């Protein structure tokens, strides 16, 4: 079972490195690419957690859909080859300080507390049928209402996106 661990640490390393690179890169298109790596690595984590369905959705929606949107947006709004003008040093320093503080703060808390509730439960993959019935069910711990809400919202988003983006 070492292999699972090794895979996890590789994924963790990928996520850590690329997420930092994604937010600090000078070029938008590179940022987007790094984001793609991060998202894919996240999908890998879902696989490790045995959430295959989630893995699929992550790949399809994020890596497939959203990234395409991003790339188009970047292509539409950026002059090719042009770096983004660097932000003021002060702003960056403050952002680093704050996020660093937050990271340390949360890290300390997690380090001190989470291990106490640590136990791993081996579990099999959730069957898609169960996902389907739970998503469409009306009982307790079933999610028809959020599902419908999300679907209406998706519709609204589509309409909205078209309304906003169309040429007048």
């Amino acid at each position, binding site marked *: 079972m070492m292999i699972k661990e090794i895979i996890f640490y590789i994924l963790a390393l990928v996520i850590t490195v690329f997420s930092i690179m994604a937010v600090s890169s000078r070029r938008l298109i590179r940022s987007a690419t790094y984001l793609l790596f991060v998202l894919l690595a996240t999908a890998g984590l879902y696989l490790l957690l045995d959430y295959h369905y989630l893995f699929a959705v992550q790949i399809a929606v994020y890596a497939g859909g959203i990234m395409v949107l991003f790339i188009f947006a970047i292509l539409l709004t950026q002059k090719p080859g042009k770096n983004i003008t660097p932000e003021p040093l002060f*702003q960056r320093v*403050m*952002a680093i300080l*704050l996020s660093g*503080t*937050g990271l340390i*703060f949360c890290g300390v*808390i997690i380090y001190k507390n989470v291990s106490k509730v640590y136990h791993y439960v081996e579990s099999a993959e959730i069957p898609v049928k169960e996902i389907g019935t739970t998503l469409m069910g009306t009982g307790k711990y079933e999610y028809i209402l959020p599902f419908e809400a999300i679907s209406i919202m998706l519709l609204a988003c589509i309409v909205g996106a078209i309304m906003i983006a169309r040429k007048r």
Partner: protein
Amino acid sequence: MEYTLYILILPLLSFVVLGLMDTKWKPVVAGTVGTAILTIVAALSYYTAWEYFSTANLNGTYQKIIAFNTVWVQFNEHLHIDMGILLDPISVMMLVVISTVSLMVHIYSLAYMKGERGFERYYAFLSLFSFAMLGLVVSTNIFQMYMFWEMVGLSSYLLIGFYYTKPEAVAASKKAFIVTRFADLGFLIGILILSYYTKTFDFGILTSCDANVFASFSGVTFMGASALSWAMALIFIGGAGKSAMFPLHIWLPDAMEGPTPVSALIHAATMVVAGVFLVARLFPIYITFTPEVLHGIAYVGAFTSLFAAVIAIVQTDIKRVLAFSTISQIGFMMVALGVSGYGGQAGTGYMASMFHLFTHAMFKALLFLGAGSIIHAVHSNEMTQMGGLKKFLPVTRWTFLIACLAIAGIPPFSGFFSKDEILAATMHFSPGLGVIMTFTAGLTAFYMFRLYYRIFHGKKYQTTNGHTPHESPVAMTLPLVFLGVVTIFAGFIPFGKFVSSDGGYYHIHIDPTIATISVVVALAGIGLATWLYRKENDASAAVARKFNTIYRAAYHRFYIDELYLFITKKIIFKRISSPVAWFDRHIVDGTMNGLASVTQWVSLKIKGFQSGKIQHYAFVILLGTLIIAAIVIFI
């Protein structure tokens, strides 16, 4: 004697009616109504005098009669202001003086003020003055007196400023009011002190000099003088202001900007002697408890008298001469009161003072009305534009001469008798003071005859623009003649029989030595004046050159006015009020505005928080969250 109330009500009524009607009535109607009402008042006053002096004498002493009294406002269980009428010898005497002179002035003004704008207003003010002055003398308590005191001040203000389009008149009226008001401040504080310790305002209780009433004063001292001395001195300051004692005399010469009959009534005969009346009214307290204040009054009076006489010598405005003469004569009255003793024959000064007040009122009113007649004829106040008027104004001339003789103290005119008594009382008190007063009497004779000669004699009158001076109409000469007659004969009234320090009978007796000396001095003064001014010559100018410094100083009234001007303009306006106003606008208000500015500044500064930058907000939110989480977790 309830009817005495009408003596007050009628003039008040007249004031209200004339004031409300104002120009709706024709001038002649207003004048007639005013004069008619005052005639009734005068008749009532005479009747009151007659009834009082014939009935109120009990065992050789005149009783005080409270003819009417009602509580006007109640301060606390002890102190209340009453409105009432007190009849005693001096108040009755004053009633007679005031109503007589006032009546004369009313009649005189019918002609003198004819055609003036605001004729109706003039009569309304005269009525107001008569009301206030009559109320003052019959006051039953010191606070009532203070009220009427203020009201005469007001009517004086209104009448001095009668020609309100003339800046000098406005300035003079303002000055008169403020200077006397300043003195009244002393009066008021004096009243407050007196009433605090004695728990009463009432003259009856106060002048009884009951030791119990004044007991609470004992041992109360302030700056080395007893509280009672302070009170009485402060009250005298009030009197000094109204009676133009040095150094509060400056308003009186300027007050001559008012119409001449007003000067005769207010600033010669009646209002200016209110201070004398006040001291006389409180005389028992002065003599019993605070003789040192009384002596102070004597010295102030003597100095004022001499001082004013010196100034009168060099003035060229005839009304100014008369004004300084008035100040000087009031000084005489004050001296007499100051040196007087109490009771029986010791009260010479008191009697003399009242007597002089009476005779002075008559002859000084006569002088002023005469001056009015002259001004009416030549349209100028300046001596330099007169001279040789005797053939144009015979009646005025003779009556003026009578008055001059009276004031100079030549027997048998009234002034002689009263002044002689004053000199006798002063001599008795202190020979030094007596000599000064005698000298002043000589100066009086000199400057009065200087005035007389420069008006009626000397150079021939230069007619200008074909305008010839002519004698005044009968409405003006009638009062002159009447007052002239009174001036001649008033000296023979057995005054001591009516008025004395303790209400008893006082025998007037002429001390031959003093009488001789005073007459000789007066004659010397007249002689000097005759030599210098009878004929137009260089002697007077030569004398003036010889005493150049003192002449100039006296001509400028010893620069007292300039001193006052300095105090008011430089000290009060420049040094106090302007800085205070500046302080208010810039420091106090500035602090308030500063607070507002600080608030605004702070809000401008913290407004940066609401920058509208989403990253800024996110930063703050996160920081806040972190801090709160830290607080929740670690504390």
